C-alpha cells in the first residue's frame, strides 16, 4: 500500500488494533447498508445526505456516494428549494469536499464534486476558489490536482492570462524546481507571445528571456532537473517543416519518402508525379499499411522506360510548389533527392544568447568536468548551434555521458546513432551512389531516418549493434536488393518485413537455426548464414 511503512508491533498491540478495526468496520457496514436500502426505496432526503457525508469524511473515494449526493442535491434544485437554503446546501457540500481533501489531497472524487458544485449552483464565488488554490499550492506546490483545479477556475473566471503567467514567475522564483510551474508557463508562453511573422512558436525577445530564466535556475542548482526539460523544449521551439526527401520511380515500383509521418490526404494533395510534363494518376499506399507513414508507394500504370523526363512537384509548408528533378544512371531507376538540412533555424538574437550560454556552460564544466547536466547541456547547445561544425565534440561528449550517466547509456547510444546518420546523410546525398554503408566509428543501435535511404539497392548494416527490435524499420528499404545485417545482435527474425531482396546476409548473429531454415523456404532470395 502506498507510502505505508510496515511496522513491527507486539501481539497485544496487534490484537488491540484489530479490535478497533472490527469496530470501525461494523459501523461502516451498517452505514453502507442503510445508505443502499434508502437509495433502493428512493428516500433521497437530507438524512441520506448526512449518512453519505459521514462515510465520505473518512473514505472520500467511494464514488457512488458522491453520485447519490448529486442526485439528492438535484432533487432539491428541481423542487425549487428557496435560494438561500439551496445556497447553504451547496456551501455545505464545498465544506465536505474541503474536509475530504484534507484527508486525501489527491482524491479525484472530491475534486470533481467541487467542480460539479461550482458549475451547478447559480452563485459560484470564483475568487474564493482561486484563493483556495493559492493556499493549497502553498501546502503542496506539486499537487497536480490543485493545478488542474486552478486551470478550471481560471477557465471560468477568466483573469488576464498575463496575471497567471506572472503567478508562475513568482512560484519559480520561490523554487526553481517547481516543474508544475514550468509546465503551466509553457502553455501560456505560446499563447501570450507567439511569433506570428516568423512562424516560430515563440516570439524572439521572449524566447531569449526564457532561455535566460532557465540559465539562472540551472545555475542555482544544476542537479535539479526541472529547468532542464523546459530548456530542451525552448531549444526545440523552431519552425518545423515536412519535406519530401527522396523519390524513386522504377518500372516495378514508385516510392516517396518524407521527413515525417504523413497521411494519405497530405500525400495526395501535395505530391505530383510528372512524366514528360504530364501528370500521372495513380493510387497511394503506405508501406506499413498504417494511416500515417514516412514512406508511400505510388501505384500507377504509366510505363517507365529509358529517356523519360521525370520530375515531381511538391507543395511545401509555405504553400510553394517545389520542382524536384530526377536523375538516372544506366540500369537504375529515376531518383530524385532534395537537399539535406537538419539544422535548427533560430533567429540571430537567440543564436547569440545560445552562444553566451554555451560559453557559461563551458566555464562551469571546467570546474566540474563530470557534472552530467552541465555536460549534456553543453552538448545539446553545440548540436543546436551548429551540428555539423561541432559534430566531433558532440560525439566525444556523448561518449563521456555514457559513462557519467550509466543508467541512460542506451539513450546516449541512440543519440550518437541519430546524429551520426544525420551527419553522414549530408555527404551521401551529394553522391550518386546507391549504396548505404555506415561510415562513422560508433556502432548503430537503432535505424533512425532510414527512409532517407529508401533509394538504395545495397544496404550494409554489418558489424553494428542492432537487435531484433529494429527489424520492422527495414520495411522502408523498398528498392534494396542486397542487405547485410552480418555481425549484429539479432536473436529472432519474427518481425523481419517483406522485402524484394536478392541477398540477405545474417552471418554472425545468435539466431535459431530452425528460424533461418523457415525463412529460407519462405523467401526466394539468397540467405547467407
Amino acid at each position, binding site marked *: 500500500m502506498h*507510502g505505508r511503512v510496515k511496522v513491527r508491533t507486539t501481539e497485544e498491540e496487534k490484537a488491540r488494533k484489530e479490535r478497533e478495526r472490527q469496530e470501525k468496520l461494523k459501523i461502516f457496514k451498517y452505514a453502507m447498508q442503510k445508505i443502499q436500502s434508502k437509495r433502493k426505496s428512493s428516500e433521497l432526503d437530507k438524512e441520506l445526505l448526512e449518512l453519505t457525508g459521514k462515510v465520505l469524511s473518512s473514505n472520500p473515494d467511494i464514488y457512488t456516494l458522491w453520485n447519490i449526493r448529486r442526485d439528492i442535491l438535484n432533487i432539491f434544485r428541481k423542487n425549487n428549494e428557496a435560494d438561500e437554503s439551496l445556497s447553504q446546501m451547496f456551501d455545505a457540500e464545498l465544506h465536505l469536499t474541503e474536509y475530504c481533501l484534507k484527508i486525501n489531497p489527491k482524491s479525484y472524487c472530491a475534486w470533481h464534486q467541487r467542480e460539479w458544485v461550482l458549475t451547478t449552483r447559480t452563485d459560484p464565488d470564483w475568487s474564493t476558489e482561486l484563493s483556495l488554490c493559492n493556499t493549497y499550492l502553498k501546502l503542496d506546490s506539486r499537487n*497536480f490536482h490543485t493545478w488542474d483545479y486552478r486551470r478550471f477556475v481560471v477557465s471560468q473566471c477568466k483573469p488576464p492570462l498575463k496575471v497567471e503567467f506572472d503567478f508562475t514567475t513568482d512560484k519559480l522564483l520561490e523554487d526553481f524546481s517547481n516543474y*508544475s510551474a514550468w509546465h503551466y508557463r509553457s502553455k501560456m508562453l505560446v499563447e501570450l507571445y507567439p511569433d506570428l511573422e516568423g512562424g516560430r512558436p515563440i516570439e524572439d525577445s521572449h524566447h531569449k528571456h526564457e532561455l535566460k530564466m532557465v540559465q539562472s535556475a540551472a545555475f542555482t542548482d544544476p542537479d535539479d*532537473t526541472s529547468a532542464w*526539460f523546459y530548456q530542451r*523544449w525552448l531549444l526545440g521551439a523552431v519552425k518545423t517543416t515536412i519535406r519530401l526527401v527522396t523519390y524513386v520511380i522504377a518500372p516495378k515500383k514508385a516510392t516517396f519518402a518524407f521527413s515525417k*509521418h504523413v497521411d494519405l490526404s497530405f500525400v495526395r494533395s501535395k505530391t505530383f508525379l510528372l512524366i514528360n510534363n504530364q501528370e500521372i494518376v495513380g493510387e497511394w499506399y503506405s508501406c*506499413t499499411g498504417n494511416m500515417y507513414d514516412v514512406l508511400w508507394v505510388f501505384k500507377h500504370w504509366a510505363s517507365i522506360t529509358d529517356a523519360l523526363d521525370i520530375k515531381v512537384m511538391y507543395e511545401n509548408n509555405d504553400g510553394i510548389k517545389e520542382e524536384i528533378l530526377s536523375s538516372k544512371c544506366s540500369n537504375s531507376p529515376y531518383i530524385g533527392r532534395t537537399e539535406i538540412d537538419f539544422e535548427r533555424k533560430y533567429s540571430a538574437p537567440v543564436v547569440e544568447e545560445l552562444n553566451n550560454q554555451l560559453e557559461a556552460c563551458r566555464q562551469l564544466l571546467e570546474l566540474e568536468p563530470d557534472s552530467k547536466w552541465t555536460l549534456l547541456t553543453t552538448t545539446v547547445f553545440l548540436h543546436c548551434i551548429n551540428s555539423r561544425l561541432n559534430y566531433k565534440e558532440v560525439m566525444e561528449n556523448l561518449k563521456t555521458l555514457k559513462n557519467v550517466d550509466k543508467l541512460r547509456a542506451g*539513450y546516449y547510444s541512440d543519440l550518437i546513432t541519430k546524429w551520426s546518420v544525420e551527419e553522414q546523410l549530408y555527404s551521401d546525398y551529394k553522391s550518386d551512389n546507391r549504396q548505404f554503408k555506415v561510415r562513422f566509428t560508433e556502432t548503430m543501435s537503432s535505424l533512425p531516418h532510414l527512409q532517407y535511404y529508401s533509394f538504395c539497392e545495397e544496404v550494409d548494416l554489418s558489424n553494428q549493434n542492432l537487435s531484433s527490435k529494429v527489424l520492422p*524499420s527495414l520495411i522502408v528499404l523498398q528498392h534494396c536488393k542486397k542487405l547485410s545485417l552480418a555481425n549484429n545482435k539479432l536473436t529472432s527474425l519474427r518481425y523481419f518485413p517483406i522485402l524484394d531482396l536478392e541477398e540477405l546476409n545474417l552471418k554472425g548473429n545468435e539466431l535459431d537455426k530452425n528460424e533461418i531454415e523457415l525463412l529460407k523456404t519462405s523467401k526466394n532470395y539468397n540467405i547467407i548464414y
Partner: protein
Amino acid sequence: MSFTTKDVVLKEERPKTLLLQKHSDYLASYGLNKDDYEYCMTEYLRMSGIYWSLTAMELMGQSHRMPKEDIIEFITSCQDSESGGVSASVGHDPHMLYTLSAVQVLAMYNRIDAIDVEGVVRFIKAMQQEDGSFFGDKWGEVDTRFSFCAVMCLSLLQRLDAIDVNKAVDFVLSCMNFDGGFGSKPGSESHAGLIYCCVGTLSICKRMDALHADELAWWLCERQLPSGGLNGRPEKLPDLCYSWFTMYQSTLTIKTYTTQSSLSMLNRIHWVDKKNLEQFILACQDAETGGFSDRPGDITDPFHTLFGLAGLSLLGNPSIKPVNPTYCMPQETIDRLKLEPQILHI
C-alpha cells in the same frame, strides 16, 4: 545549493530473487476472509481488484487458484441493464474504470458472453463527447484515463468502430505537453501514469506516429533514479505506482510499470537500466507475506503485485509469462483475440 535527490536506498537484506510461490499464495488467500478490514474498505474498486489478482495469477500460470465461476457470476451481476456499464461491485454505480476491468477479466477467461456486449458498447459510446474525450460516467468527469478505458475495452470486444476513433485520438493529442508527455486533460501536467494511458490509446488506435517519441522517451528514462526505481514526475519519490489513494480512483495510475510499458511501446526500453530496475522491483517484494508493495518495506497489495510481476515480465524474466505492454494482460490473450497494438519503429 541544498539539493538532495529524492530516492530510496535499497537495503542489503532485501529480496533478490523472485518469490513466485509466496505471491500466488498471497493472492489466492486475498479476500477469503470477507470480514478483513482492507478487503471491505476497498469494495468500491472490487472489479479492478479482481483484474489485478487474476492477471497476476495468469502471468504466474496460477489462474486455476482463482474462483472462476464465482468471478464470472459476480461480473454478470455488476452490469447495469439500463446504461450497459459495469460497476465496481453490487450496489455501486457503473463506471468506465470498472467496465474495462470486467471486460479484461472476461477476455482472459474467454467468457465475453457472460455480459451483454451490446450494453457495454452502448455505455462507452454514450460517454464520448463532441471533442472526442470520454466521461468516466454520466456525471461528466473528463480524463484521458477514460479515453484509454474506452478504446481498450472496445478493442477487446472487437467493436472499436462504435466510436469516433479519429476524434478520440485528436483529444488525446490535445493533451500533449512541452515535454512530449501527457496529462489528464488539455493543459494538465505530464505524469507517467497518464502518459501510459495516452500512449496506450495511440497504440491501440495505431497512431504512435503522432508522438514526439525521442522527447517523450527521454523524459521517461530520466524518471529512473540511482535505486533503479522510477518516479512519476520530475523531483518526486520512486515507487511501483503513484499513490495509495489515487490508485484506487485512478486504477491505471502507476509509475514504474507505466513508464516501462510506455518505453516498450516506444520501442525504447533500453533507455533505462534494466538490471537496476529489476533489482528495485525485486526489492519491493515482501518475503513474509508475499506480494509487492509500492516501495521497499511498505505493505503489499494485489495492485502492486500485478504491476511488479508485469514489470519483471517486460524485462524478460523467464519465469513469468510475457505481458502485453499496451493491455497489461497476458500476451497469449492478446494473440488469441488477434489484437495487434502498435509498437513504434526505431
